[in-house]
């Protein structure tokens, strides 16, 4: 469904993505792991053109184009087909929960307001927020805000959702409710690319794991194989250190 070839990105002298390739099939749930600063966020942002890659080719639904010179129209088409869930939620603070979810439908897609609200309410029910339609984001807990973020991402019926550490800004006791929603989506066959530090999520929900290090993908394999047959010493140590941290919590 999405294929990326040779994506490069530098910030000044710092080369953050060093020409990596990526292939995502429909229904894939891919966890992206890797140490801090390895370029995970930058990769996701380039995929949705929040950051412009210096080089790289994208093939989306069979349509191939250069990522650096993509036209505004192409970028818009890609964004219409994809969604993004942010670490810091980034809800529209002047809009109610329901408006947050429907804005992409009523404004960007000119959908009828009642139809959009019906979709929005269904999704909010799905993420367990049926009593919060009219609340404002600052009246919600972090976990609730992120569930609104997920409902907003789902509203536009995307082909793929990118998640950038969806639970890292949450208190430990709120992480579970958000992961449960993402797991439900995985079970329904939603295509998702999830940057995460949650080993349990990577192990039990994702079907594939990508490991990034210093701007390269150094491993990309089925989840089972990644955790159980890991030959790379560096990756084994990384997993151990994270799991150790997890236990200390």
């Amino acid at each position: 469904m999405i294929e990326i070839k040779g994506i490069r990105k530098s910030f000044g002298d710092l080369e953050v993505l060093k020409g990596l390739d990526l292939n995502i099939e429909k229904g894939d749930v891919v966890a992206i792991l890797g140490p801090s600063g390895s370029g995970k966020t930058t990769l996701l942002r380039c995929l949705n053109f929040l950051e412009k890659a210096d080089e790289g080719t994208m093939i989306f639904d069979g349509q191939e184009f250069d990522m650096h010179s993509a036209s505004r129209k192409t970028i818009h088409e890609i964004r219409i087909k994809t969604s993004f869930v942010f670490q810091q939620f980034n809800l529209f603070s002047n809009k109610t929960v329901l408006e947050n979810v429907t804005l992409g439908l009523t404004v960007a897609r000119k959908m009828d307001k009642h139809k959009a609200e019906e979709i929005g309410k269904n999704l909010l029910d799905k993420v367990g927020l049926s009593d919060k339609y009219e609340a404002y984001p600052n009246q919600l807990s972090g976990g609730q805000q992120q569930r609104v973020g997920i409902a907003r991402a789902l509203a536009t019926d995307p082909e793929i959702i990118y998640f950038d550490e969806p639970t890292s800004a949450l208190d430990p006791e709120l992480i579970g409710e958000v992961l449960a929603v993402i797991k439900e989506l995985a079970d329904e066959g939603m295509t998702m690319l999830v940057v995460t530090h949650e080993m349990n999520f990577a192990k039990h929900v994702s079907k594939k794991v990508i490991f990034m290090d210093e701007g390269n993908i150094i491993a990309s394999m089925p989840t089972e194989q990644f955790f159980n047959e890991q030959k790379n010493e560096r990756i084994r140590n990384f997993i151990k250190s994270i799991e150790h941290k997890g236990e200390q919590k």
Partner: protein
Amino acid sequence: MKIINLLTDSFLKILLPGIRVTIPLTVISFSLAMVIGILVAFVQFANIRVLKQLARFYIWVIRGTPLLIQLFVVFYGLPSVGVIIDPFPAAVIVFSINEGAYSAETIRGALEAVPKGQIEAGYCSGLNFVQIMWHIVLPQALRMAFPSLANALIAMVKSTSLAANITVMEMFMVTQQIVARTYEALALYLELAFIYLMFSTVLTRLQTYLEKRMNTRGA
């Protein structure tokens, strides 16, 4: 007793031009200033090249020169190059251009204070730049800028007294004329000050009320 009669007689005489001139002058000028302010702030926020430079130049000149002199340039200066403008429209032009420069800076600061992540989320929802500005950034920015803009409005009510200098028949001008006839400068100017105070008080109350109402909704 004579002084009390004078004050009650003059009260309406001063208040009437307040309602007929000071208020319309303020309302029209401030509304235009808001339009100018939003456009000039927007041009800078969106980083539109030449227009941004023009915006900086405009703000630099207007904020760097006295309002009174701007009034004189337009009303007494421009006729010498064939541009003759009546007192009231001249005052509207100067007050709106002057306040536009200040509110542009206020609004630009507020636009920049809206978290960038919300703009990115807007793009990810498929909105374009103008839709993001209209639905997300501008409403939040105006709410943040509201207290400063309300203060600016109150300041403008008082600044309109400067229009007396270009023969606009507003409250100060009318009071000066009454003083010239009666020589009761202290009482009459205090009365004028009191009327300005009434106007400002109403606006301050309104500001407090609106701020409270806004705070009950969202961030």
